[in-house]
């Protein structure tokens, strides 16, 4: 498990030799010792990392048109809806619109009798060797029956650092963002996180 919250650990540790070499590149007398400079650099670096990890919030990252599924929805219909929307998972809500779970491809696969993370080739091989494909297992079931609950959710104020830490710790791929009373207002996926690096890159150019 990566230590996401420890901003003290630098990807590249700076040494006093680096500082001395860098000072030689700068013409003129610098009124600071290499040791002090290293200390200042490390403290400033930590602050920059902290700023990076708090600069983007869930509200900035999330996909706002969130497709929710009803708890009582038929699984086959749910699968068709996910396929149509080209998404691999969605929050599940009760009749009042409050989140009660999350359903994803993983839950479908589990229900079909595969492990949580089979490859397409495993599924294909299985279906080719057995006349009756396990997809039949999904008939006459509801979303509420296979969803993961309780749902892991976030709030719009959550920072990108907190979100990526949660993704890693809980091994999840999507995080529904909900209001205080549990209504989904958006969803942050791993894809959204990946796109956020582009925002950082654009920030560097300015």
């Amino acid at each position, binding site marked *: 498990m990566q230590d996401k919250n420890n901003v003290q650990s630098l990807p590249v540790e700076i040494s006093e030799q680096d500082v001395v070499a860098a000072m030689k590149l700068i013409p003129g*007398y610098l*009124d*600071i*010792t290499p*040791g*002090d400079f290293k200390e200042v650099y490390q403290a400033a670096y930590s602050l920059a990392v902290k700023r990076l990890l708090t600069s983007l919030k869930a509200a900035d990252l999330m996909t706002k048109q969130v497709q929710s599924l009803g708890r009582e929805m038929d699984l086959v219909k749910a699968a068709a809806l996910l396929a149509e929307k080209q998404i691999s998972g969605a929050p599940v809500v009760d009749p009042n619109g409050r989140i009660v779970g999350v359903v994803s491809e993983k839950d479908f696969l589990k229900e079909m009798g595969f492990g949580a993370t089979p490859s397409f080739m495993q599924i294909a091989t299985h279906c080719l060797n057995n006349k009756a494909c396990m997809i039949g297992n999904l008939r006459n079931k509801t979303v509420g029956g296979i969803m993961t609950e309780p749902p892991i959710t976030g709030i719009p104020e959550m920072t990108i650092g907190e979100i990526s830490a949660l993704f890693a710790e809980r091994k999840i791929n999507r995080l529904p963002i909900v209001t205080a009373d549990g209504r989904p207002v958006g969803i942050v996926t791993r894809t959204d996180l990946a796109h956020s690096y582009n925002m950082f890159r654009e920030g560097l150019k300015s």
Partner: protein
Amino acid sequence: MSYLQKLKGSGQSPPKVSLSEVVWSWIGSFFGIAAVSLIHYKLLDQTGLMMILGSFGASAVLIYGAVRSPLAQPRNLLGGHILSAFIGVTAFHWLGSELWLAAAVAVSTSIAVMHLTRTLHPPGGATALIAVIGGKSVYALGYFYVVMPAALGACVMLIIALIINNIPKSRKYPEFWF
């Protein structure tokens, strides 16, 4: 960067130090200057010898007020005063008939030598200058000016710095010796 842009300055002033840093700077410099001036006024009064130099006021700013600065380290404090004192006296001996020239040569050569020996200490420039413009009492010392007040005075100030600057948790002195 254009000449005018350079003149505008593109950096910013470092942040203000904490109140405890201000207090310890005051305490250190009070005792440092008290030590050399007590010796000067109470012990050496009628002897024609000196223990205090105007440049020690400037050294006090560094060794009690900016203790982490490379300029404030023992190597710089001692090396800067001793080398500059020697250069100042020499400049006066060789060029004393043209005091303006002796003064300029003393200070500029001191800076160059301090750079070359990694002993840059700004008050050293003043120590070199005083050797030229200090008047009869300074001229009478000849090269003894290098030993006293320059070297011994700087040593006394250094001892006080070593004692006082290591009392507070937030300070340590020196960063390096040589």
